[in-house]
């Protein structure tokens, strides 16, 4: 195999590639998936009670409630607007504080409180927002509680959903660049017959296949890093990060080349991806549901590259901490060379080059 010839094919693919929509997918999809999963589904998995406040004076309750963790607080100007938005469940509850509310409170004049609840709000959210409001009013009034409350945390704090989504998003970025791109590119050349033209030149089939893999690899590594950066999950350890991403890129590129070599046309690649996508994405689902038996994730081959990425970026592991998993990943990469070589030979036979 000649490196120079392979690089020539690679340069050709790099120059012509951007004309293909799949290149756009490679660039856009990580951004889109991050947006959809983190912005949209993030709040679906982990909804916060939503409170609207209309403060007709300048109550300290408003400032206090805005500083609380775990609530979505919006300050509105008009009580009628607040009532309409609570009724349509844009907010779980709404609070209207009359002018001089704090002064009346401190004077013991018992001001009137307007607290509206959306009919569609959950009972638990009503309790959270109701009790929180009462507690803040008591605080502003200045009365000391006749009880001491000590908060005792038991067990480790769970990771927020935004962090648990990172493996899924990174895996998507890797899949599109490292699997889809080489697979579709190879199958497209086969479908259009251009691969036959290539292999009658001095270029060998193995060099064409390797060039496709190199293209996927070269794009997948920066796209994975870009996706981690987008999700604020790059971590501080660059050497372990690069190592785990490079190995992930290699493993997935091999899968992409296998798909490309096994398919007669792009439709075949599409079928393969649809049929086996769950095997590739499977382990990332287990991060979303930490109560599921986590050993099942280890059955999937991609676990051995996605978990090291997770450990290095989220848990701050060094290479020693993920050495065992990376060792298995290298083993999987070596094993995948067998079907890749066999399928490339079969492709060569079908093209009449061997």
């Amino acid at each position, binding site marked *: 195999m000649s490196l120079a010839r392979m690089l020539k094919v690679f340069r050709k693919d790099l120059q012509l590639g951007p004309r293909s929509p799949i290149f756009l997918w490679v660039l856009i999809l990580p951004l889109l998936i991050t947006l959809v999963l983190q912005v949209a589904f993030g709040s679906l998995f982990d909804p916060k009670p939503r409170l609207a406040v209309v403060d007709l004076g300048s109550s300290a309750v408003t400032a206090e409630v805005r500083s609380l963790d775990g609530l979505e607080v919006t300050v509105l100007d008009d009580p009628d607007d607040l009532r309409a938005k609570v009724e349509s469940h844009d907010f779980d509850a709404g609070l209207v504080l009359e002018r001089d509310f704090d002064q009346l409170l401190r004077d013991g004049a018992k001001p009137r409180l307007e607290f509206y609840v959306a009919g569609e709000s959950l009972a638990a959210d009503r309790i959270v927002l109701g009790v929180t409001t009462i507690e803040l009013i008591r605080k502003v009034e200045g009365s000391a509680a006749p009880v001491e409350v000590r908060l005792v945390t038991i067990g480790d704090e769970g990771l927020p959903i935004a962090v648990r989504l990172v493996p899924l998003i990174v895996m998507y970025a890797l899949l599109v660049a490292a699997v889809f791109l080489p697979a579709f590119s190879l199958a*497209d050349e086969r479908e259009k017959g251009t691969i036959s033209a290539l292999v009658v030149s001095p270029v060998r089939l193995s060099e064409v296949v390797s060039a496709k893999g190199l293209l996927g690899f070269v794009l997948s590594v920066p796209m994975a890093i870009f996706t981690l950066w987008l999700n604020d999950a790059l971590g501080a350890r660059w050497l372990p990060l690069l190592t785990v991403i490079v190995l992930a890129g290699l493993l997935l590129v091999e899968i992409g080349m296998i798909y490309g070599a096994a398919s007669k046309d792009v439709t075949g690649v599409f079928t393969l991806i649809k049929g086996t996508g769950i095997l590739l994405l499977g382990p990332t689902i287990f991060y979303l549901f930490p109560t599921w038996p986590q050993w099942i994730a280890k059955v999937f081959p991609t676990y051995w590259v996605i978990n090291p990425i997770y450990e290095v970026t989220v848990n701050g592991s060094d290479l020693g901490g993920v050495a065992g998993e990376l060792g298995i990943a290298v083993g999987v990469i070596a094993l995948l060379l067998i079907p890749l070589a066999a399928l490339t030979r079969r492709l060569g036979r079908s093209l009449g080059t061997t």
Partner: protein
Amino acid sequence: MSSRKATSRLTIISWIVRKDLKEYGRDRLWAFLTALVLVAVVALFWVLPDDVDESITIGFSGLGEPAAARLLGDAGDAGLRFVQAADAEQLRAVVAGDLVAWSGPDGFSLLEPDADGPEGASKQPVAIGLAFPPDFESATAAGETTRVDVLVGGDVPPELRSTVEGIVKEMAYGIAGIPLPIDTSNPDEIFVVLGEDRVGDQVTARESFRPMFVFLVLMMEMFVMSSLIAKEIQDRTVTALLVTPARTGDILAAKGISGALSGLVQAVILLLAIDSFGRRPLLVLTLMALGAVMVSGTAMIAGSAGKDFIGTMFYGMVFMIPLLIPAFAALFPGSASVWIRALPSYPLIEGLVGAITYGDGWVESGPRVLTLAAWCVALFGIGWVVLKRRVESI
């Protein structure tokens, strides 16, 4: 003569429709994917939870039976559930997950994690515990300050931690006889529920995902039709059709009909499988028929624009992503933003949610049906023009 002409046009169109549907069936990839999506969506629908647990379950220890009944008795109505532990140590074990609470017809029981629960009982996660001192009620009533430990699991969110603290404080205020510092002369004015009160009757995850699933099947149909149109253009079989008595208009009409028909059939199968016709079958069917026409129009545009399989898929995605946004938005509470309401699929999703989930009739759904119909005309018209130009350019 004109009647014979009209009949022959219809006959030609029906021949092309039959040919298209046969081709659809013969295409193993799309036939497989269509079946796969239908089966997967139906399976996923029935796996989704059909209830909403909107209560907070809290363990407690240290309160004797009469005090517990007095202090916590009415709280269940407000969305709180209390599980009694024998002592603070057992309470800690429950919150740590070393003991599991089972809720059954005879109340709660605490068992080892690997033990089978009582018949008809279900596991009840308890992530919060209140360890009261034994003299909590008497000491607080006497004006003494006692200490209550609030035990929380690591994954309890901050708003719930502060709420439970607040609940304990309010219990103490109540025992100590310290009233609320606000005007409570008319309790109905303080806590006003706006809109239909759905506590205990919330929209479940299964209900929320229903429009999304129905729309996904329609979108799948768009991919199939656009791919078949693109294939026909690439293979130039469309030009072969034009040397028969069929005119360009017949081919376009046939494409639109076969696209809408196959989309509608799949949507109806799905709606039956996920029990979605509900109280308004005709309205739901009308919405789906219009939805099928809309995706048929977009399929004509995507199929004309894509030069090959990947291109067609790409253009399909360009349509699919914005059209799916209203279905995503329906998963969230509250009204959709103005820009989401401006998307063509919004009246379809809103109509389906209204008719299936809330039982809206023709009167409430009328504006949605009309808006959707207008979008159908627009998208189908654009699809017609784009495909016509593409066919004529070959």
